[in-house]
């Protein structure tokens, strides 16, 4: 795609979006501050957290009560702060927006959908075909949306969103309506597109797998606030609070007492002794919440010598549940102290072992996988 015009490039060499908004919706108050550059920023949270509203305020479909939204130095919205109020209508903002369920026009073909977004550009038809070609949909240009599969619809929606030569691409749960194998391809293609066009991509999802598959950074939204924002691995490995850990679906929370500090921290979790990495902020006797990363719980082969992966926190447990996600298997195991934790591993791992509910299993908790969480407010109460 050639950029026919680039009105907002004056703001600097790199696309940049900054947003600081407040909005009350009934009894719910949204107060979100975000900065984003080229890359994929995942807005993560449960439904009702206000994720879609954030996208709508950027696109111009929802009006914040006050705040400021800037894209490449251009003011999209400003209210309640100097110099003057601005509220650019949606049609002048022209961000790319792939809405939930894609919102393709049902009375137009794929090509007509894209031609609509191209407005009065010369060679609209040719450009529409070129855009469809870029998402590998040229052969289905004359189909109506209801004649396309979920994945095909998503491709058309992305091509349509890119028609406005945008720097900002917003996507609202784009992978909700597609099956797992298709989803992986779409995710790869989206990543490639982002790099190629140097786009700021803001993607809303409530699924951790999607966040990991496409995200560079993640902003965890809960109760109308960003609870934590950062590189996705960091946020997942070090949730800033127990609330973030819970929102992220990190189930393995441990409420333990610090038994000993030193080169390693020893935790007492209802009678179970766990070794965790040294942490100077902990004092003996303190009660803390920690998180056991499900990926750092290893299963010990009964007939093999213990390697470095399985040298600490070796426990005999019983499998109480087995489930499977798109690319991982998750075991729920009961520990000797009566608590359950989740163990997560790639589908093909531990293939020789029979891992069925009811069977005993020996597990090892890697020290690095036991993370003492910050003492931030517990999100289940207050905030």
């Amino acid at each position, binding site marked *: 795609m050639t950029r026919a015009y680039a009105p907002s490039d004056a703001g600097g060499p790199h696309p940049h979006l900054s947003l600081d908004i407040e909005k009350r919706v009934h009894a719910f108050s949204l107060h979100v501050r975000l900065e984003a550059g080229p890359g994929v920023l995942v807005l993560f949270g449960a439904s009702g957290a206000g994720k879609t509203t954030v996208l709508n305020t950027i*696109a*111009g*479909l929802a009006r914040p009560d006050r705040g400021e939204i800037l894209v490449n130095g251009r003011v999209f919205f400003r209210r309640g702060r100097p110099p003057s109020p601005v509220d650019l*209508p*949606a*049609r*002048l*903002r*022209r*961000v790319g*927006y792939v*809405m*939930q*369920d*894609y*919102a*393709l*026009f*049902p*009375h*137009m073909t794929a090509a007509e959908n894209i031609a*609509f*977004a191209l*407005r009065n550009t010369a060679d609209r038809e040719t450009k529409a075909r070129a855009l469809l070609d870029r998402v590998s949909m040229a052969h289905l240009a004359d189909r*109506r*949306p*209801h*004649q396309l599969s*979920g994945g095909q*619809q998503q491709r058309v929606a992305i091509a*349509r969103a890119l*028609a*406005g030569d945008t720097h900002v691409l917003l996507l609202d749960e784009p992978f909700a*309506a597609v099956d797992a194998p298709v989803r992986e391809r779409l995710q790869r293609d989206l990543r490639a597109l982002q790099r190629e066009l140097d786009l700021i991509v803001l993607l809303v999802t409530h699924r951790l797998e999607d966040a990991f598959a496409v995200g560079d950074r993640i902003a965890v939204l809960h109760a109308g606030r960003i609870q934590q924002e950062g590189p996705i691995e960091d946020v997942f490995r070090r949730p800033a609070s127990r609330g973030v850990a819970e929102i992220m679906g990190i189930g393995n929370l441990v409420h333990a007492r610090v038994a000993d500090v030193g080169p390693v921290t020893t935790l007492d979790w209802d009678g179970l002794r766990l070794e965790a990495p040294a942490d100077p902020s902990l004092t003996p006797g303190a009660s803390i919440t920690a998180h056991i990363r499900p990926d750092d719980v290893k299963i010990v082969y009964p007939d093999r010598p213990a390697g470095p992966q399985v040298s600490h926190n070796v426990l005999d447990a019983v499998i109480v549940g087995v489930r499977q996600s798109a690319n991982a298997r998750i075991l729920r195991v009961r520990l000797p102290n009566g608590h359950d934790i989740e163990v997560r591993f790639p589908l093909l791992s531990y293939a020789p072992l029979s891992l069925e509910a009811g069977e005993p299993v020996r597990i090892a908790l890697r020290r690095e996988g036991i993370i003492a969480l910050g003492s931030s407010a517990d999100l289940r109460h207050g905030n």
Partner: protein
Amino acid sequence: MIGDALRLSLLVTVTATVVAGLFGLLLGRLLARQQFAGKTLLETAVLLPLVLPPSVIGYYLLIGMGNRSVLSWAGVDVLFTWPAAAIASAVVGLPLMVQASKAAIAGVNPTLENAARVMGAGEIEVFFRITLPLARRGILAGVLLAGARAFGEFGATLMVAGSIPGRTQTVPLAIYDAVQAGRTADANALVLLTTVLAFTSLLVVRLLEKQPERRDARSPRGETGGPA
């Protein structure tokens, strides 16, 4: 005689349907998409001709068109001409058009309209290229209903246009006249014709309603309409 009444009814009905269609569409969109103070009052007022006696509607129209009205001041004298009959027909057809187009427009997923706005479309383009094509079945049903109602208008027409053969005597008035004068053959022909027309309109409306609008992009229904 019959030919005159038919020609006049056609003229009156088409004019009334166009007028009621345009105003009804605007009001329907307003009621379906906008929130404003007094919305319920406006909607009630628009529906009033459905339940008011024709003589009351006719009386209001007489006042509106009479020699002390704004129209009269402007030098327009429509009383006892076919335009008066058309206005009376439009007024009684309007509620049906408003109701149908309001429901049809409300049935269009607002997300699609928002998607068009984000792509740079202004309100007029959104209405004509997204809302209208997607609501076309319901709107067409409204046009047919309003047209059928306009064709059958009797009481208010009599009050504002009279029943002047060849000038203001539409089919319903001609039927009354024929019955009064004992011209049974004329009455029979016109009654049969009116019944067939009314039946056909309602049948088409029913068929339109049986296949509702495709509401969203993922509707699994087969292809129905032609290209918009």
